[in-house]
């Protein structure tokens, strides 16, 4: 029984990747660009989901991890002439290291205090990016030229500014993080994170070091978010401090809530949904944020567990 469920969910995830792959060939140019962006931002959402959805820790500072990846990759490529692969690695390392440090400090608090502490650290990060304007050019940001966004892969050079290549690279990253999330959710670690979310004291009395497990969740979450940030810098060639602003701490929370917290596919669905609601609404009215607000309220009222969460609850209990 358990094997069948595992096989079914694996097939579903493979199918999702297959559909996304096929979309590259059928989507009009504009939507292909949108989808590339959504795939990268969905990775950000998946990173957020690991901490918020599975472990139950609500951070209001995840922009700093996304931005750590963005700047880790952007600054090394722009100022130090690092290659794309090295820049990407630098971004991930920056995010994971920052997450470790933040985790060690912020995990001394819980609940509202944790939200405030993460928010404060993220604001510090944001202000830092503005302070070192010489290097970051602040809000205006840095533009990575096309000629530095070339990924050498076994003799061939991939141009990351090419729409198709960009789509494939974004999808590859998305697939890796999606299957990593699925693996974590099914692994002992995933079960412990959920247990911590449900009842910390009981988890401790089953022999689990709650702090260490939460720290692992923060670091993995930071790492995924940084991977998204680094990919964003390299694929779209823009590195600006607006990505470190509070808006980018709130967005992943909304995406995850909309799509379904603690579901593997919820982050993608939520990101996709919100992107297109904004896109469509802004085509009709200049008060599109009002439409978005109403859409959010309706969703939260009728689908408190998010879109994928509601599907799991009503029809497909085996959804991971």
């Amino acid at each position: 029984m358990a094997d069948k469920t595992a096989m079914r969910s694996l097939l579903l995830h493979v199918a999702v990747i297959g559909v996304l792959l096929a979309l590259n060939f059928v989507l009009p140019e504009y939507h292909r660009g949108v989808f590339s962006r959504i795939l990268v931002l969905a990775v950000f959402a998946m990173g957020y989901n690991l901490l918020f959805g599975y472990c139950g820790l609500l951070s209001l500072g995840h922009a700093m991890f996304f931005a750590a990846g963005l700047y880790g990759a952007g600054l090394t490529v722009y100022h130090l002439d690092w290659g794309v692969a090295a820049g990407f690695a630098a971004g991930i390392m920056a995010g994971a290291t920052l997450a470790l440090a933040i985790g060690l400090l912020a995990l001394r608090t819980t609940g509202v205090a944790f939200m405030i502490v993460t928010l404060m650290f993220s604001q510090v990060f944001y202000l830092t990016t503005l302070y070192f304007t010489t290097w970051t050019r602040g809000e205006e940001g840095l533009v990575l030229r096309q000629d530095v966004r070339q990924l050498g892969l076994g003799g061939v050079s991939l141009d990351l500014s090419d729409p198709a290549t960009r789509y494939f690279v974004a999808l590859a990253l998305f697939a890796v993080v999606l299957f990593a999330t699925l693996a974590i959710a099914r692994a002992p670690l995933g079960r412990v994170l959920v247990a911590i979310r449900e009842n910390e004291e009981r988890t401790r009395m089953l022999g689990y070091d709650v702090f260490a497990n939460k720290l692992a969740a923060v670091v993995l979450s930071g790492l995924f978010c940084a991977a998204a940030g680094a990919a964003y810098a390299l694929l779209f060639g823009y590195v600006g401090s607006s990505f470190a602003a509070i808006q980018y701490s709130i967005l992943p929370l909304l995406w995850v809530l909309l799509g379904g917290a603690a579901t593997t596919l919820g982050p993608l669905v939520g990101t996709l949904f919100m992107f297109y609601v904004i896109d469509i609404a802004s085509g009709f009215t200049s008060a599109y944020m009002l439409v978005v607000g109403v859409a959010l309220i309706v969703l939260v009222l009728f689908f408190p567990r998010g879109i994928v969460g509601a599907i799991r609850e009503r029809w497909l209990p085996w959804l991971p």
Partner: protein
Amino acid sequence: MAAVKPLLAVRDVHKSFDGLTAVDGVDFDLPAGEIRAIIGPNGAGKTTFVNLVCGRVMPDSGQVLFAGEDITHLPAHARVRRGIAYTFQITSVFTQLSVYDNVALSVQRTLIDHKERGESRFSAADLRRGVDHALERVGLSDRSAMPAGELAYGHQRLLELAMGLALKPRLLILDEPTQGLSDSEIEGFGVLVREIAADATVLLIEHNMPVVMALAHRITVMDQGRVLAEGSPDEIRANADVQHAYLGVSGDA
């Protein structure tokens, strides 16, 4: 008792909460293999005492030795890994998780520990086998897919017990396990505790005197944070101090 080293030895532990003394200088020895009951009126300090043993509460002074080692300063989760399992006085299963996942958390704990001791990695099949075995022992096999919160109260207590025994503890601490159970459930519970005691030491806080008298090898009586008496069930029954402090007023307990 001097000849055999006790599994658990507690030396002069004290604990007060904001000036209120909950445990006031308790010495306690528990030999391996025993079923020991702790009885005493409400507020006697029984829960606080076992919390000092399992590490949920740290003592103001005194020492806790487990299997000859000083564990006074070990955090609770590390004590669980050394073999001290605790089941909560207030049922505290993971209500949103399935019965299976509740027990899997215990089983994977022991499997991870085995791995870290250099044994082979464990598979999903090992985990399933361990969970099935624990659920079978408490008779919840047919409910493994249910969310734990949907179980009847008596079954939640059994699940709590399954989580405890799936940790394969050397010392299993049960805090008022029969509270709120029906007579037939209590009977089944007694049988189960005796089975568990075949390979673990059991420390049991219990108000139900017939259960205590039937199960315990020895009984420790606590009152006002101190040990008032200790002895076999017959000795405790005959003890005048105990009658006065506890049994005399136990008509409602």
